[in-house]
């Protein structure tokens, strides 16, 4: 019998899962309850994830056998420091974003509130499931739970949202199917689906072509799912047209969790030695990532729509994470892990700000935002902090992930990557300062003073503002305390041999 703090492994999933269908039951009578149930469930998951992280850090890896069946036959949930860390990241961001979603959902989707939160919690369940599971097939199931809910959530947006969602369905299904094929190929040669078991069984088979093909399928699948350039085509439309509550939930988390899958596959299922030495997968990935960083930034420069610009910037930032993974040395990986955390905070903050702007002004065009800083000083302050972090100005969080990535690139003696990272921070500066300039300096364009119809523009309500400010403060604190996070958690989360 397991003590309660071990049971948190499963509670982290079943609390949001059970709540997600409690919502429609209770929602028939009390529409308002949907938001509170969702928030409570995610809050409970957050508590569980914190318990898990502290347990993992003090007592070592947690193995949880679902239904009491031992691995490799039963499904096993494994929490190691990397998992625990990801769990806390996902829960924290989800909690803050959910907190801020109340008003914007009420405004944008007044009739669909109940179902919105049902699917929303399912998405969260899927993401958490991906994070905690230690079984490659179970991961596929959770991947599809998360993806399906994401498709549905994106489709309820405006304008081109259904089409964006459909393209996402097509691309996402291709990605998931490739992942499934990878699982199948590994199953043929090993007869196992458990990650730890696979890691034990695979090394003698590293010469086999089947294993190589399985790895290739895994890579293509996860690359599509996380929108790695040039497989990112679904991402900008999906993020742009999704309702603001959805884009500020999906943008910071979805792609990060997919990057986590990549890390798991490369460094847990396969040994680092395989992906670095036997097959140069890591270096291929890092070169693709370098292209992604530059291409994403350049595409972001060409956008006039704030959300679309942020989406392309996500494409570029995914490149950073993959670059760190591909560098496959200690500093590079730390940079990648830290960037998962930092980018989740930055994108959460920036997309929430975009949502706040939509809520009050209905505008997304960055050239129509003059004088808005007088009406919404705190929101715009958060925008500035998020933008500075994206550019990589110390002491914001974004600087430090960049710092470790540069150190990793130098350690790998790869000067092209150093140049790419540095050049991309300049490109980031170009497009983010364009926004800041438009927000803060009104005289420049002659000023666009007329108010949007309806309510006068003012600061967003507290339930939206507080998460934005917390996320912005988080960016600063993560920057200042990044060393604690690294030496306390991330160093332990590195794969063996680093």
């Amino acid at each position, binding site marked *: 019998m397991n003590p309660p703090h071990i*049971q948190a492994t*499963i*509670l982290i999933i*079943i609390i949001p899962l*059970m709540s997600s*269908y409690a919502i429609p039951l209770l929602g*028939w009578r009390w529409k308002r309850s949907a938001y509170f149930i969702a928030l409570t469930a995610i809050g409970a998951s957050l508590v569980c994830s914190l318990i898990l992280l502290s347990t993992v850090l003090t007592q070592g890896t947690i193995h949880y056998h*679902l239904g*009491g069946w031992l691995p490799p036959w039963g499904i096993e949930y494994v929490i190691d420091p990397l998992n625990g860390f990801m769990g806390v990241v996902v829960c924290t961001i989800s909690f803050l974003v959910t907190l801020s979603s109340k008003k914007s959902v009420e405004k944008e989707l007044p009739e669909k509130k109940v179902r919105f939160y049902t699917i929303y919690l399912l998405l969260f369940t899927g993401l958490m499931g991906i994070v905690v599971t230690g079984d490659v097939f179970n991961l596929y199931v959770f991947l599809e739970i998360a993806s399906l809910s994401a498709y549905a959530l994106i489709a309820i947006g405006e304008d081109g949202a259904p089409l964006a969602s459909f393209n996402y369905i097509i691309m996402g299904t291709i990605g998931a199917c490739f992942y499934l094929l990878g699982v199948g190929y590994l199953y043929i040669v090993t007869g196992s689906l458990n990650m730890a078991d696979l890691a034990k069984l695979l090394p003698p088979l590293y010469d086999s072509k089947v294993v190589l093909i399985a790895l290739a399928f895994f890579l293509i699948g996860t690359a599509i799912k996380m929108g790695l350039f040039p497989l990112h085509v679904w991402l900008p439309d999906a993020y742009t047209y999704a309702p603001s509550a959805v884009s500020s939930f999906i943008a910071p988390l979805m792609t990060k969790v997919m990057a986590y899958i990549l890390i798991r596959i490369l460094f847990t299922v396969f040994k680092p030695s395989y992906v670095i030495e036997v097959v140069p997968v890591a270096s291929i990935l890092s070169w693709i990532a370098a292209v992604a960083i530059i291409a994403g930034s350049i595409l972001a420069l060409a956008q006039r729509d704030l959300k679309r610009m942020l989406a392309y910037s996500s494409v570029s930032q995914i490149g950073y994470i993959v670059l760190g993974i591909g560098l496959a040395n200690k500093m590079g990986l730390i940079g990648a892990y830290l960037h998962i955390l930092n980018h989740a905070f930055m994108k959460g903050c920036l997309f929430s700000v975009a949502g706040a702007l939509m809520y009050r002004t209905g505008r997304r065009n960055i050239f129509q935002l003059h004088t808005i800083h007088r009406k919404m000083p705190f929101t715009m302050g958060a925008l500035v902090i998020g933008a500075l972090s994206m550019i990589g100005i110390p002491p914001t969080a974004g600087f430090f992930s960049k710092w470790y990535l540069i150190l990793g690139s130098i350690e790998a003696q790869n000067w092209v990557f150093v140049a790419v990272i540095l050049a991309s921070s300049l490109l980031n500066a170009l497009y983010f300062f364009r926004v800041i300039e438009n927000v803060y300096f009104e005289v420049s364009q002659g000023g666009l003073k007329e108010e949007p119809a309806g309510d006068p523009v003012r600061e967003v309500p507290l339930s939206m503002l507080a998460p934005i400010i917390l996320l912005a403060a988080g960016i600063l604190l993560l920057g200042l305390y990044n060393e604690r996070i690294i030496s306390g958690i991330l160093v332990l989360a590195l794969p063996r041999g680093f």
Partner: protein
Amino acid sequence: MIVPYENVIIKTICRLLLPFLQLYAIYVLMHGHYSPGGGFQGGVMMGASFILLVIAYGLDDAQRRISVKALTIYACLGLFIYSGIGALALLMGGNYLDYGTLPLPLSSIPKIRAMGILGIEIGVFLGVMAIMIFIFLAIASYETGGKDD
């Protein structure tokens, strides 16, 4: 909009067929945990029987028999049974879905496990049935509009 096709043969055959279909669905469910079959298959059959009803008798008639609201409750209830049994095992001190710990008045742990699985299958059955019909109704009634919420 699916309107009833006024044909006595179809309606009659349908009426004759339905009970057997549904009975077979329940049979598949009940034997699911120790022979081929199970909650999902049974649920799909159960759902299919209602779809047949819709095709033969039209959408309005079917919706009078089973409303969207009831379907939602069935779906949620099914999933609730599933995860509820799992969580009950958790409360009894086992791992999630560890049926062996369920407080059933049976002689041996394998028997308890079998009963636990049956409970799970019933949950799946209800959920799948409701969702199948739900998807069909949602897609079939799109022309009436406003149902995409």
